[in-house]
């Protein structure tokens, strides 16, 4: 297959344990214990992976084993277990480095997730670079996590937030974007994939445009790295963020990738242990990156579990996962388009794994409750993207989102569920 949306990145070649030519989602489902559950007496149809993905046994087992057999704090002890734990934690960093093809392992900073990653950049890079009248550029389809941290620092520094508009399909206006960039623009922060609309933004092109004016770019990868191959060097992004829990990994762990030259210039984020070289009451010397940004005991088990998730993901050919997810999304789009009362919100040419919709005047919360009674888990609401809802003039949407373990059968169940919703309301 030749996936057209791969203009942003290609995966580095690695040996694929599962690469047999045809991805088998039914077999993949066996790796996820939770998917055999029944909800309200019905087999679970989990269509809320954009909020958080379920976890494969490989992740659960790795974390269980770590706590049962390998656990200790990191970077501190001289004893055997501390060495084992430190090695596993630092191996996890290198696993992430390889996954996104970062040049150096120090460029991988473990954080709680995308939210913390963006706050870190806003509070360190932002505080240093932004002055009165300077500008931060975000897009009209950002998650609150890529709006509020910038608003906070802009307010503090007297800087201004500028917004790249989008069209009615949910595609960013690149001409308007280029026009927004000016001498006062200090950073562009844009999502790779929209969690509310599914749009895949042409971030590589956007980065190129920003770099022509020497403006650094942060890419919010919370919704992209589990679906698309990510190569931060090919993208040439300055910062990239990951949330482990959306990539089949545990909660509480994520990554900020940053180019080393930028990270070196940034002040620390939080103070504490591990981020220092020496402390006296008069003066503290900060540690090198990445430790400068990892104050305190990190989520060691989380990092190791996250690495297990990435190893699991890499045991497949990401292009095959992508092709499968595209097939399910396309099938869902066609199937749901056949329902008269249903309107799909977000119809960008390039989309990934998210299907937001409204159903005549039926409120998404009512849709969600009725689908839940049929064992179907979707998300209803504004998806932490209120400006997107305002842009489309709706209070909320119902959102089905897909992952590698979803199938066309899940879509059929969803369509049946929607018919039931319509039956209750007419």
């Amino acid at each position, binding site marked *: 297959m030749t996936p057209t949306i791969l203009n942003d990145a290609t995966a580095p070649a690695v040996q694929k344990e599962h690469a047999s030519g045809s991805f088998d989602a039914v077999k993949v489902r066996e790796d996820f214990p939770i998917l055999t559950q029944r909800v309200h007496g019905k087999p679970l149809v989990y269509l809320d992976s954009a909020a958080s993905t379920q976890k494969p046994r490989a992740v659960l087992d790795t974390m269980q084993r770590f706590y049962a057999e390998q656990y200790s704090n990191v970077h501190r002890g001289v004893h055997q277990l501390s060495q084992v734990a430190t090695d596993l934690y630092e191996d996890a960093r290198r696993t992430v480095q390889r996954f996104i093809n970062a040049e150096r392992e120090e460029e991988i900073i473990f954080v709680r997730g995308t939210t913390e990653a963006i706050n870190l950049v806003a509070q360190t890079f932002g505080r240093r670079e932004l002055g009165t009248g300077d500008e931060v550029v975000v897009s009209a389809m950002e998650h609150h996590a890529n709006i509020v941290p910038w608003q906070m620092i802009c307010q503090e520094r007297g800087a201004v937030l500028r917004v790249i508009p989008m069209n009615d399909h949910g595609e960013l206006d690149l001409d308007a974007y280029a026009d927004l960039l000016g001498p006062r623009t200090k950073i562009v922060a844009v999502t790779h994939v929209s969690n509310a609309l599914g749009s895949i933004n042409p971030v590589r092109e956007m980065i190129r445009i920003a770099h022509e004016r020497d403006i650094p770019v942060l890419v919010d990868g919370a919704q992209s790295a589990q679906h698309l191959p990510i190569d931060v060097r090919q993208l040439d992004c300055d910062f990239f963020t990951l949330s482990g829990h959306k990539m089949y990994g545990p909660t509480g762990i994520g990554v900020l990738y940053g180019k080393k030259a930028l990270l070196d210039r940034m002040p620390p984020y939080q103070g504490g242990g591990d981020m220092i070289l020496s402390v006296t009451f008069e003066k503290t010397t900060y540690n090198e990156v990445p430790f400068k940004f990892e104050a305190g005991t990190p989520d060691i088990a989380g990092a190791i579990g996250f690495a297990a998730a990435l190893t699991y993901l890499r045991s497949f050919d990401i292009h095959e996962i992508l092709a499968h997810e595209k097939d399910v999304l396309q099938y869902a789009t066609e199937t749901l388009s056949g329902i008269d009362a249903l309107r799909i919100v977000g119809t960008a040419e390039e989309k990934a794994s998210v299907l937001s919709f409204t159903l005549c005047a039926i409120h998404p919360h*009512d849709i969600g409750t*009725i689908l839940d*009674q049929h064992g179907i888990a979707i998300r209803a*609401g504004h998806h932490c993207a209120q400006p997107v809802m305002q842009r489309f003039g709706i*209070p909320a949407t119902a959102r089905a989102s897909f992952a590698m373990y979803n199938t066309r059968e899940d879509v059929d169940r969803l369509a049946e569920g929607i018919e039931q919703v319509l039956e*209750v309301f007419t």
Partner: protein
Amino acid sequence: MDEIRELYQEVILDHNKHPHNFRSMENADAVLEGFNPLCGDHYTFYLRFEDDAIAEVSFEGSGCAISKASASIMSAVLQGKSREEADVLFELFTGIVTGKLDPVEHLEKLGKLAAFAGVAEFPVRVKCATLPWHTMHGALHGSDSQISTE
């Protein structure tokens, strides 16, 4: 599906489709906003008093079927009630939808409000049903800020 029918009773579906007193009010004595930030339900309630009784209740806004029907039925039920009677109904209604009171024991007082008994089986929807009532309660007890479910 039975539980769904329990939740979405005909009365509730009717009021959702054709809400009563769904309009603004120019000469209102109290105006208060009710907001559920989790799902975006957002209503404005208007109250007009005559002597010490509630002469008229109306509302505007948008939200799910449960919250809209609750607002509609509340607006009808409260008409002509004293503040004390409104408080009693508030306690009764919130007791029923949170499952703390048994609707069977209060059928007479509940009247149309009994339609909301099914909400108790759906904990995440309790706030939808109570939002109008909490807002009204705030208006009666002198709150002049927006009432939020969170």
